[in-house]
């Protein structure tokens, strides 16, 4: 018997579809208005802002439960879209300085990678999750290698691509075993099949789970799967690096959180040990390696590895409190990291200037405002009150302590004390040394806006965190 065929309800996917259309429109706009270089960024920015408004309104479940738009996914989508908007604003002047000719493909790749992140955040089926992940990853590989004549960019892109593709293979191999043992790719159904069949005793299932977790650790740059991060961050253009350190990471955490809490809540005692070890290694390698870096982008790359370690701690308890602490942390990390990268871009008046730590010597004398902003962002990354970084770390540590993970919190606090050395070294270079040479800066209205928003975010979230805290916990409860 032929049953009626009905199209899936696409309303919950409104923001994603809209943003994908904008991504295509941007390429067309670039061809039509070749001379006006500001049309494309304005269209991208307006599209991202409209999608942001749509995300706050959209909700529902579509495609037979494969795609869930709930408060949890909306939270991560907001983080990704804000990251996209920051990155667009930062790119305006920087693309001119770096001599990028066709700006259409740059913005359109950024938008498409954001669509991929949004799909990842909403995916409740492994197939959709994989597709979102690849859409994001493939766009970001291209973005990293966009400066075709720069050897560092192509080297970074090829390293990122090879390790990213390798991790996708691990993810898929793991997924194939999960599918084989549970007979489904739907996360809720996997969880049910697991409880029914006592699958934690099945080595094939556990291998699948392990491979999936490892693949996500590649994506969020958790040690020992972080090898691509410093190279990819250093070789890419600075706005792309800023975007990569926030967007794909948030999307990776969204997917990891969804997989761990929705598909494998019954295997908590199995995965929690692995996650503790991963979080410990990530914090240790990130913080200790950052000590001996001479390039600020590389230093921030290792710092982002270390921050992934802190964020992982939030997932350990498997509770709503822990997950919402991680979400808050990623939201706050968005502002402080974007701010720090915006200062680097401000100093990149000529291609490579501003990348070495040495360039920051005596910045407080020549450009006191830039130095002051960097000071705030470095304090926040260290986790010194009254900045957002402190509140974020405090919440994660409290959540882990409530669940009884005392040792990992002790280590996290120790590593965070170590991190003060390399963050505050930047401050020391800026304030306690004489300037060695004349530094020119490249201010622009858009970049000032980024700096102002990031500064406001860091201070406000540090002083009045209640709004965001309750929003994130609501997002988890509604989930």
């Amino acid at each position, binding site marked *: 018997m032929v049953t009626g065929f009905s199209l899936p309800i696409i309303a919950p996917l409104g923001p994603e579809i809209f943003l994908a259309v904008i991504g295509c429109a941007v390429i067309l706009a670039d061809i039509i208005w070749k001379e006006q270089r500001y049309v494309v960024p304005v269209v991208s920015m307006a599209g991202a802002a409209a999608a942001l408004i749509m995300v706050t309104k959209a909700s529902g479940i579509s495609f037979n439960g494969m795609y869930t738009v709930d408060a949890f996914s909306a939270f991560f989508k907001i983080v990704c879209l804000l990251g996209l908007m920051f990155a667009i604003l930062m790119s305006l002047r920087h693309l001119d300085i770096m001599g990028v000719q066709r700006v259409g493909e740059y913005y359109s790749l950024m938008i498409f990678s954001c669509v991929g992140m949004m799909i990842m955040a909403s995916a409740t089926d*492994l*197939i959709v999750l*994989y*597709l979102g992940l*690849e859409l994001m990853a*493939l766009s970001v*590989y*291209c973005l990293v*290698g966009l400066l*075709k*004549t*720069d*050897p*560092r960019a*192509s*080297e*970074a*892109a*090829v*390293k990122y*691509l*090879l390790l990213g*593709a*390798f991790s*996708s*293979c691990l993810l*898929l*191999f793991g*997924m*194939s*075993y999960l*599918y*084989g043992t549970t*007979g*489904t*790719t739907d996360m809720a159904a996997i969880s049910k099949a697991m409880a029914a069949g006592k699958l934690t005793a099945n080595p094939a299932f556990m291998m699948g789970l392990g491979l999936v977790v490892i693949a996500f650790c590649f994506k969020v740059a958790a040690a020992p799967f972080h090898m691509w991060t*410093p*190279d990819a961050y*250093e*070789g890419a253009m600075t706005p792309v690096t800023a975007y990569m350190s926030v967007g794909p990471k948030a999307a990776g955490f969204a997917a990891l959180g969804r997989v761990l809490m929705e598909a494998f809540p019954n295997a908590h005692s199995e995965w929690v040990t692995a996650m503790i070890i991963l979080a410990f290694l990530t914090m240790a390698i990130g913080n200790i390696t950052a000590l001996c*870096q*001479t*390039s600020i982008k*590389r230093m921030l790359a290792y710092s982002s590895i270390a921050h992934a370690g802190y964020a992982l701690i939030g997932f350990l308890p498997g509770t709503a409190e822990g997950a919402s602490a991680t979400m808050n942390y990623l939201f706050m990390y968005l502002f402080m990291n974007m701010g720090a990268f915006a200062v680097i871009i401000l100093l990149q008046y000529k291609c490579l200037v501003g990348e070495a730590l040495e360039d920051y010597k005596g910045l407080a004398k020549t450009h006191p405002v830039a130095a002051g902003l960097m000071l705030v962002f470095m304090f926040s990354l260290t986790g010194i009150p009254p900045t957002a970084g402190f509140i974020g770390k405090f919440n994660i540590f409290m959540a882990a302590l409530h669940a009884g993970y005392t040792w990992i919190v002790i280590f996290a606090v120790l590593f965070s004390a170590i991190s003060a050395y390399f963050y505050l070294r930047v401050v020391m270079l800026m304030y306690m040394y004489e300037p060695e040479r004349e530094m020119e800066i490249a201010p622009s209205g858009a970049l000032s806006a980024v700096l102002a928003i990031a500064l406001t975010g860091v201070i406000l979230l540090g002083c009045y965190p209640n709004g965001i805290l309750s929003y994130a916990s609501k997002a988890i409860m509604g989930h």
Partner: protein
Amino acid sequence: MVHLSWYLTVSAMLFCIGMFGFLTRRNIIMMLLCIELMLNSVNLNLAAMSHYMEDIRGQVLVFFIIAVAAAEAAIGLGIVVTLFRNYHSVHTEDITKLKG
């Protein structure tokens, strides 16, 4: 009839060959080929399981993987071309501008 475990064994062997190749080869094009090998071992796995369980989802995923693998190969080779223009080599030991 060919039993499911035979397919799974072949696919696991293919995956291991691909992984071994990826980790030991120093030519980037060979590494990309090894990735294709790993992806196809997953496809074999999924198709066999899907057929065995009489469930269509696995085969749907196979189609998606084939499409994404094609896109990945296109982007990968594109990046290798830019790399070759800049370094005149596709061997990992020659490509060492970024380190620290």
